[in-house]
């Protein structure tokens, strides 16, 4: 019974990590950009909820989705588009710059203290399933994640722009040579990453009931680790890596000796380092890399 409880915890945390990793992985697969400013998209979603406290739920959700998507598109337009031909290291540094810039704008406007936000408080209660007590938030998280991933798969498989994005992820220059509009696929990727980040911010705000200007930082680090575990450049790998890191985190939380539990994250990252010795290319190799063999 205890095991089942842990399994549900693991899957719901893994689902959140997977959503965050998908946002990172999607942008990387197309642009070779590791967007550390993804965390600030998550944070922007949270602060939208904070700013609109008291509005109907639907308004909150739509407003946060719009703000994160527009911020994602804005980052691309202002910071990353001029650097598109730059090398990945330059892009990475630029993403740090964007990340710090957005954090400090929020710091100036809202201050450094975490602030309480009542959001989806009704999901804090649990449902009983024959002895199992499952928080409603976990159920909603798992269901929403699966729906969103199903939607993404359908989008990539069935839509024209989805097919163009898969082609661009495999061979960006060749995609342009068949007429795929570079600006369009990249804008789509950023808009989708904004939506994914917003979902993560809904979870974080509902879970912690608060927002702060650094709320996205640790999540984006976990997301980055997850996408590396899954295989940088593979979109499916990012999702898989997210679930795996979530499962490992919860397992350590549940089964480490009590006195070591505060250091759980140290063990998570230790396992990550050992994993990289074993499989530096990640679980699923990037399609683009495999083709070059």
């Amino acid at each position, binding site marked *: 019974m205890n095991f089942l409880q842990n399994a549900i915890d693991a899957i719901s945390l893994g689902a959140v990590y997977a959503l965050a990793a998908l946002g990172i992985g999607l942008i990387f697969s197309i642009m070779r950009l590791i967007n550390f400013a993804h965390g600030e998209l998550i944070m922007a979603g949270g602060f939208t909820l904070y700013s609109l406290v008291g509005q109907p739920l639907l308004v909150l959700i739509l407003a946060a989705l719009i703000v994160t998507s527009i911020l994602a598109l804005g980052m691309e337009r202002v910071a990353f588009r001029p650097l598109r031909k730059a090398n990945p290291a330059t892009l990475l540094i630029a993403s740090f710059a964007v990340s710090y810039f957005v954090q400090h704008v929020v710091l100036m406007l809202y201050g450094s203290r975490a602030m309480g936000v009542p959001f989806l408080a009704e999901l804090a209660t649990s449902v009983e399933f024959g002895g199992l007590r499952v928080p409603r938030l976990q159920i909603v998280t798992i269901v929403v994640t699966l729906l969103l991933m199903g939607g993404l798969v359908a989008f990539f498989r069935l839509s*024209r722009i989805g*097919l*163009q994005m*898969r*082609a661009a992820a*495999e*061979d960006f*220059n*060749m*995609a*342009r*040579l*068949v*007429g*795929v*509009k*570079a600006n369009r696929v990249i804008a789509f990727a950023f808009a989708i990453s904004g939506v994914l980040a917003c979902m993560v911010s809904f979870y974080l705000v509902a879970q912690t009931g608060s927002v702060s200007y650094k709320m996205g930082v640790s999540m984006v680090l976990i997301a980055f680790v997850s996408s590396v575990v899954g295989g940088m450049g593979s979109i499916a790998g990012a999702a898989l890596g997210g679930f795996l890191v979530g499962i490992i985190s919860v397992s350590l939380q549940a089964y480490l000796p009590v006195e070591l539990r505060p250091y759980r994250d140290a063990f998570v990252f230790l396992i990550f380092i050992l994993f990289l010795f074993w499989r530096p290319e990640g679980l699923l190799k990037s*399609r683009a890399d*495999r*083709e070059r063999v």
Partner: protein
Amino acid sequence: MLEITDLHVNYGNIVALRGISLEVAEGQIVAVIGPNGAGKSTLLLTAAGMVRPRSGSVIFAGHISGQMQPEALVAAGLSLVPEGRHIFGSLSVAENLALGATVRHDRAEIARDINRVLTMFPVLKDRYRQRSNKLSGGEQQMLAIGRAMLARPRLLLLDEPSLGLAPIVVGQVYEAIQNLRASGVTVLVVEQNASRALSVADRIYVLNSGVIAMSGTSGELKGTAAFDAAYFGVSAGAGAP
């Protein structure tokens, strides 16, 4: 159709093309031959908008290639099949062909053109739903040409279409090129292995170290000492006579 005037291209400090001028008239097959490193690929990449010229001009049907994005040039009717084919290996044959029609929106006509490609290259029909990295080199070349045809180009640029292919497959590829010309497509083909290109080209340019060494019809060029040196100098590859 394509007019290149005094084209200079650098990659950083490396000079790739130093003052190339050439012309491709509508309905022609023009071949550019020359050894490895002569600047042939650079020439095509510049015409397709992937590489920016340092000076000189590339004008395709009134469009200035040097100032346009490659995707806009595809929409204007210029397609490049790059060296090494660059099919999307993780996607199916069907998806690769569908991507070829990215710039078009006439669904019914696209479906007809896909059928035309599958009639021209029946082997692609058998493998239509398979991942295209399962195809052989020759099949991949056919897919790459078929994919380019789906954009309905007026000018098709082909970079070493016979590279690494068995002679019989090279024959099929060149048959397809001649069919394309018969259907009104102008072709600019670049080859290191010149023999096959010579037999179909209306006009030939010999490129060496970034300059045009000579040009003319194959009749005019064959027999001149300099041409034979260039031609036989590069004829050791696969598919040579």
